[in-house]
C-alpha cells in the first residue's frame, strides 16, 4: 500500500536549502526521507536526535528560533539565587554529532498538502513527515491589561525561561524588605503543574536569607495546590513559617501596574512584584498549522504515534498536545513522548507498523529549598480499549518526605535530561 512520489515534484530547493548548504550541511535529499522538526525544546530536540540515532538513513532538519536552549526546569532556582542563567542555557551543537541539521529560523506556516514548511528567512523546507513541538503561547487576552503591563516590564510571567527569568530575578532583588511578591496561577491544564509551588519555595528561600520581613502571596485559580499539595504545604509551614500565604479559587482577570494590583474574580490584591502566569495554549505555529482540536487550545494526537488527529503526516509533541489522562505538561513527558514519536516515524518511513505498545514514564522533581527536593512519578502505557495512554495503576507516586538525596538526584536529572535531549 506504499505510494511512490518523485521527491523532486515537491522538493522546493529554495532559500532553506541554500541556508542548509551555507550552514555546512548540504545533503542529497533526493535519495533519503526527510523529517522536519519545528521547535528544539524538550520534545522536538529529543525527537530529532532519536530519529537519527535509530535510523541514520533519515534526514532530520530541526528548525528553532533561538540560538541557545534555555531550560525551564531549574529556572526557579535562578529566581531563588542558587543557580544562574549560565546553568540553564545550553548549546544545540551536541545534536550535530548525530547528524541533525539545525536551522536557526522562525517557522511561519505549514502547507500540509504540499508537505512544506515556510521559514521567515530561509524559504521553504519540504518534508516526508513533520514534527511540530512549539511548546506553549499565552492567552494574554484572558487578563485585562496584561499585554500592556508586560510590555513595560511591570508584570512578568517567567513561564518561558529567558529574558523574563532575568527580569523577575532583578525585580525580586530590587524589592524592599517587607514587600509582597504575588504569584498568580492559572486554571489547569498549564505547563508544569508543580512549577508555581516550587517557585513559591524558591522565592521564599531567597526572602528568608535576604529580606526576612517579605511575603509570598499565591493566588491560584484552582481550588487547591494542583500537584504534591501535602508535601508543598508541609515545606511552606516548616521551612518558611508565616512567609507563604495560599489562596485558592482566586483567578486573575486583570492587572493594573499603576496601582500594583492584580484583579481577581473575588477581590483585588496588591503587591510589589507581580508575577502573573496567564492561561496557555499550544504555541502559535500549531494554531497556524491547523493542529488545534480541543477547546481552541490544544492539539489532539493519536498517542500510539503522536500523529495529529487533524492533519495527516504531522506529529505533535510536548506541551502543545491535548494531554492523555493523568499526563502532566512537563519536560520529562515531552522528552518521553518524543521517543514514541521517533520510533513511530522511523517505523512508518520504513514501511513498518509502529510499536503497538508504547510505554513511557514521567518524574517531576521540585526543589522546596536550595537543596531539598520532592518528586511525583507515573508510568503511562498504551491502553487498547481506550485507544490512548493511561497511567499504570499501582505504579508511580510521590516522595515520602522532602529530602536532600532527591535534591541531588533532581540536579542530576536535569543534567541528564539536557544531555539526553540535546546530545
Amino acid at each position, binding site marked *: 500500500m506504499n*505510494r511512490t512520489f518523485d*521527491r523532486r515534484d515537491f522538493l522546493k530547493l529554495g532559500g532553506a536549502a541554500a541556508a542548509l548548504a551555507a550552514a555546512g550541511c548540504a545533503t542529497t535529499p533526493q*535519495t533519503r526521507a526527510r523529517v522536519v522538526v519545528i521547535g528544539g525544546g524538550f520534545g522536538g530536540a529529543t525527537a530529532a536526535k532519536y530519529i537519527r540515532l535509530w535510523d541514520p538513513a533519515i534526514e532530520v532538519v530541526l528548525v528553532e528560533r533561538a540560538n541557545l536552549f534555555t531550560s525551564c526546569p531549574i529556572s526557579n532556582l535562578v529566581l531563588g539565587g542558587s543557580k544562574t542563567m549560565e546553568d540553564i542555557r545550553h548549546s544545540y551543537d551536541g545534536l550535530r554529532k548525530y547528524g541533525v541539521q539545525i536551522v536557526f529560523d522562525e517557522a511561519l506556516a505549514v502547507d500540509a498538502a504540499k508537505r512544506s514548511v515556510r521559514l521567515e528567512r530561509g524559504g521553504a523546507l519540504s518534508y516526508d513527515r513533520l514534527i511540530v513541538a512549539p511548546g506553549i503561547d499565552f492567552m494574554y487576552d484572558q487578563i485585562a491589561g496584561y499585554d500592556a503591563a508586560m510590555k513595560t516590564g511591570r508584570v512578568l510571567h517567567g513561564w518561558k525561561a529567558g529574558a523574563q527569568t532575568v527580569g523577575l530575578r532583578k525585580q525580586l532583588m530590587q524589592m524592599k524588605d517587607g514587600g509582597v511578591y504575588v504569584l498568580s496561577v492559572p486554571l489547569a491544564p498549564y505547563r508544569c503543574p508543580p512549577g508555581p509551588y516550587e517557585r513559591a519555595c524558591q522565592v521564599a528561600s531567597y526572602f528568608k536569607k535576604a529580606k526576612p520581613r517579605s511575603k509570598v502571596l499565591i493566588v491560584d485559580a484552582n481550588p487547591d495546590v494542583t500537584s504534591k499539595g501535602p508535601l508543598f504545604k508541609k515545606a511552606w509551614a516548616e521551612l518558611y513559617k508565616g512567609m507563604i500565604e495560599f489562596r485558592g479559587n482566586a483567578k486573575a482577570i486583570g492587572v493594573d501596574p499603576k496601582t500594583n494590583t492584580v484583579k481577581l474574580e473575588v477581590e483585588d490584591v496588591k503587591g510589589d512584584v507581580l508575577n502573573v502566569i496567564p492561561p496557555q495554549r499550544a504555541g502559535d505555529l500549531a494554531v497556524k498549522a491547523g493542529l488545534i482540536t480541543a477547546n481552541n487550545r490544544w492539539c489532539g494526537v493519536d498517542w500510539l504515534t503522536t500523529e495529529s488527529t487533524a492533519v495527516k503526516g504531522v506529529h505533535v509533541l510536548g506541551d502543545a498536545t491535548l494531554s492523555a489522562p493523568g499526563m502532566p505538561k512537563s519536560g520529562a513527558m515531552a522528552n518521553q513522548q518524543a521517543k514514541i514519536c521517533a520510533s513511530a516515524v522511523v517505523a512508518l*518511513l520504513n514501511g513498518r507498523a509502529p510499536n503497538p505498545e508504547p510505554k513511557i514514564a514521567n518524574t517531576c522533581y521540585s526543589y522546596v529549598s536550595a537543596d531539598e527536593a520532592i518528586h511525583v512519578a507515573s508510568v503511562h502505557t498504551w491502553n487498547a480499549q481506550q485507544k490512548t495512554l493511561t497511567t499504570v495503576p499501582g*505504579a508511580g507516586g510521590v516522595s515520602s518526605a522532602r529530602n536532600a538525596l532527591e535534591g541531588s538526584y533532581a540536579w*542530576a536529572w536535569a543534567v*541528564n535530561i539536557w544531555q539526553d535531549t540535546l546530545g
Partner: protein
Amino acid sequence: MRIAIVCAAALAVAPMAASAQQQNAGRDLAASCAMCHGTNGRGAVGYEPLAGMAKQDLVRKFTEFRSGAKPATVMHQISKGYTDPQVQLIAEYFAAQKR
C-alpha cells in the same frame, strides 16, 4: 530518483508487521529510562549506568525495587509500571550496550 513513502491514509489499513516491531520493543522500553540513566544507559551523572549491566543483575535489581527489598527514592514506584516480560526485554537491551 524515486523513493517509497508510506501514505498516511493507507497506514490505517496496513497489516501489523509484528515481527519487525518486536525487535525494537526492548529499545523503545529502555528509552524511557534514559532521561535519568543516560541515552542507551550511558554517560549519566549521579545515576548508575545501565549500559553493559548483566541481564540477570538488572532483572534482579528491578525485581527487588518492585518488592521493596532494595531501598529506593523513586525506582520502587517506576518499576511497578513494567511487566516481567518487559523487564526481560529492557535488561537484554542494556546488557547488549557498550559500557
